[in-house]
């Protein structure tokens, strides 16, 4: 029975992760800790592996159809992984509470920017992109930093940076982010695996669900209304901001 529930949980997180370019960790970690009673380190390790699975399954389709921009993804990912490594060095030197609160505030502002009505060009791709590349790369470095310091998946930061700062259409930003989060999460997942923090039987069941769910997410990503996608993303950002602020207080 537990295996079937794990497959269903994986399916849900895979579908939402692939649709929104997040990886699905934001859904998987609470499910694993609250419903399956897994220790946090095991839940985070399993979730990272799940993010890699979502990214792999969704990227196959997004790269083939050209919706994920490989060069843009690799450019930003170079900076993000360097930021993640620096974040690893910085952890322990910076008070976590301050980072949580700052990050929460930034996410609330980004959620507001994402939800408010705006010009059409960033949605349809009519405008030229990427714009503000240097600013986008600087923020990607910070995203890598924060992602490593706080243990959050990069998608919730990468998508707004690409969409709001660099002018990349939202559907292309989510697809590109989907490819990128797999690269970021893979390094962490391998470390958790080598440390033996992941229950292989549970992880297998979740990954099978994720592979199936990702297909559904990709299917809907071509059909979903851009406004619905933006509002969904803003809701997820607000939820993450709330969690960060609660941790910081």
């Amino acid at each position: 029975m537990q295996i079937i529930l794990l497959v269903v949980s994986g399916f849900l997180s895979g579908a939402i992760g692939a649709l929104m370019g997040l990886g699905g960790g934001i859904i998987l970690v609470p499910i694993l800790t609250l419903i399956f009673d897994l220790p946090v380190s095991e839940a985070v390790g399993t979730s990272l592996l799940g993010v890699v699975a979502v990214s792999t399954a969704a990227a196959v389709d997004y790269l083939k159809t050209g919706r994920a921009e490989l060069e843009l993804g690799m450019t930003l990912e170079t900076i993000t992984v360097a930021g993640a490594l620096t974040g690893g060095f910085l952890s322990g030197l910076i008070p976590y509470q301050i980072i949580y609160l700052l990050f929460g505030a930034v996410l609330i502002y980004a959620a507001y920017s994402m939800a408010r009505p705006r010009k059409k060009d960033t949605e349809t791709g009519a405008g030229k992109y990427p714009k503000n590349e240097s600013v986008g790369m600087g923020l990607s470095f910070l995203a890598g930093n924060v992602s490593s310091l706080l243990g959050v998946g990069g998608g919730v930061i990468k998508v707004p940076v690409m969409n709001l700062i660099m002018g990349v259409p939202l559907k292309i930003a989510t697809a590109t982010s989907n490819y990128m989060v797999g690269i970021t999460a893979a390094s962490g997942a391998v470390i958790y695996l080598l440390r033996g923090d992941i229950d292989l039987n549970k992880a297998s069941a979740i990954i099978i669900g994720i592979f199936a769910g990702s297909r559904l997410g990709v299917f809907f990503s071509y059909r979903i209304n851009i406004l619905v996608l933006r509002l969904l993303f803003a809701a997820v950002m607000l939820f993450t901001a709330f969690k960060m602020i609660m941790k910081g207080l």
Partner: protein
Amino acid sequence: MNSNNDISIRVASVLKIFEFGAIILLLGAVIGNLMDIYPTNTLNIMGIALVAFAPTAGVIAAGIISFRQGRRRLFAYSMIILIVYIMGFFVAR
């Protein structure tokens, strides 16, 4: 077909091989585990290793293909990501 699309399609093909390999192994592990018919640890390890290594394989593939096509910038990005991966791995250990 421009070279950007070509690289994307080839990287997607590499990811697809890893995905299908992992699906077959992990399905075997999950079904075996559900029916309690044989020890599934080896299938689990192999399947999960394929999943965990897939993005790295994608980056390596992008590096090799872009090198062969003379796309130096993309090749450099792939190498930087791989170097940071290796550094991160040793730092974490």
